[in-house]
């Protein structure tokens, strides 16, 4: 089985600090990492490789330094990494991003399964996975929490939706996006890290892909970001202390009054 995992480089958020004065995120010195939700996609692919045999290729679109996330993917056990990078791709919205990625994936040859993350923690649209499926006219199943290989040509998957878990039979080739429940991501191994150092990362760009130039980057993007605001984080609410029995009673009284006043109880 040939599996492609599109992964995105995002700013690391676990150490993000908020500026108390302006209420904005302190961005300086923030490192870039693999989108945390893409680790589940990588794990899903690598488990299939362990259980059924597969070649797993991680693909990322981004600036040259995004190759770092491919090294990470290979050190976890992926066979290959492909960097999709060109100045002309910069500023792409999800429509243009999914176009470019779909062309890159087509150029890699036969693919049986594409496993994308649920969403990226920065742009946070969850649109690139479904977009790639649409460009490639592949059947699509999103929010997958469990995969069972039924045959060479089909999977039985579980899909986490508002009503519970749907069970679907999915013919291959197909694209799925996965949720955290699918598996816990493995850590990179020493052997994997060595392999990453030896593996040559292929780069795909406008030089070696046949692309519609009007579909690329900022210019080719139907959506335009026209304004960015940083909402204030503090609400300036009431603070009450409840450190002993009497103050607990009083605090809960005041809370009940507050909730009644706001008509929620």
């Amino acid at each position: 089985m040939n599996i492609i995992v599109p992964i995105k480089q995002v700013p690391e958020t676990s150490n993000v600090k908020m500026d108390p004065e302006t209420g904005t995120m302190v961005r300086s010195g923030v490192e870039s990492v693999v989108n945390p939700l893409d680790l589940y996609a990588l794990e899903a692919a690598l488990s299939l490789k362990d259980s059924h045999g597969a070649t797993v290729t991680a693909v990322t679109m981004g600036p040259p330094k995004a190759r770092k996330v491919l090294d990470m993917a290979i050190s976890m056990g992926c066979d290959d990494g492909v960097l999709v990078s060109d100045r002309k791709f910069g500023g792409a919205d999800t429509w243009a991003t999914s176009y470019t990625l779909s062309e890159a994936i087509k150029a890699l040859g036969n693919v049986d399964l594409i496993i994308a993350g649920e969403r990226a923690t920065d742009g946070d649209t969850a649109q690139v996975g479904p977009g790639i499926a649409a460009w490639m006219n592949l059947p699509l199943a999103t929010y997958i929490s469990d995969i069972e290989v039924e045959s060479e040509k089909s999977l039985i998957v579980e899909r986490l939706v508002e009503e519970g878990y749907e069970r679907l039979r999915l013919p291959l080739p197909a694209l799925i996006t996965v949720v955290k429940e699918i598996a816990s991501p493995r850590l990179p191994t020493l052997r994997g890290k060595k392999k990453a150092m030896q593996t040559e990362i292929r780069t795909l760009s406008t030089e070696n892909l046949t692309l519609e130039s009007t579909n690329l980057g900022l210019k080719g993007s139907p959506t335009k970001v026209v304004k960015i605001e940083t909402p204030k984080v503090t609400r300036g609410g009431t603070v009450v202390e409840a450190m002993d029995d009497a103050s607990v009673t009083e605090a809960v009284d005041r809370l009940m009054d507050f909730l009644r006043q706001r008509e929620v109880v």
Partner: protein
Amino acid sequence: MSYIWTLAEQANGHLKQVSFELLTRGRKLADSLDTKLASLLIGNGVSAEALRELILSGADEVYYVEDPRLASFSCETYSNIMVELIKTFQPHTILAAATSSGRTLMPYVAVRVKTGLTADCTELDIEETTGNLLQTRPAIGGNILATIKTPNHRPQMATVRPKSTRPPEPDADRDGKIINVPFKEEWLDGRVEFLGYRKDAGDFENIEEADIIIAGGKGMKKAENFKMLRRLSDSLEGMVGATRDAVDRGWIGYSHQIGLSGKTVSPKLYIGAGISGSIQHLAGIKTSEIIVSINNDPEAPLHKIADFAIVGDLFNVLPELQKRLEGGK
């Protein structure tokens, strides 16, 4: 002037509440552009009465595509229907819900009709000078609000965060047209087969739909103590949420996780107990109407963004709150 469309959603023949919330949004846009509002529904077994509810809630026209094979969501089939209807009617704008199906179908359709899509909007407006849709959405874990336009492509498409607005008051005097769109065999794409729902879904709960959420974190100390939250949420007719730390310890199932790698919720009331308020957790609760925090650490970040913060031991505060709710005073 081309129409504003909303995409209504149904499950088992019943319209979901979010279908009505979208009409609140759509009506405002249609009025400011002086055009009509239509609601499109794809599904099966929805009664004429339910369809009329859409009219009473603000739609001028309802297009209903019905077939037993449309009962469960299929991205491929639904997108075939939408692509054809979009090409035929050329709407100005399409609003869908940012639900599991809306967030799957809309990007698939946007690619096929070659237009932009803005995700998970919490604010929608019309730009006066151009008549363009101004779409505002939180991104980067809710730390920024971006306003996005689709200036040169039609239709303009957006998904809208459930519960980010209230459904309209139905108006019994409103009139409108209900149009049954005949189903075409050629729309059917049978590639993905729906087999049913999993039976033993454990403690699955859809917290995105909750009006009241009482959430627990690592400060709850053990799984046993989540029963306290369950009792409170029963009294409040709410649901139970949790932080990643609580979920990872196996105290409660993943469907309850709120935050960057869990659900984004917008209840009327969120109560967090024993939750520090990490940036990843806050990403999931920022659009809650009222935030209450219970934590014995006065410096806990959740206190800072709370509308009402109790600095105290949750094991004293929660039982007291339970007593009050049961005592009914």
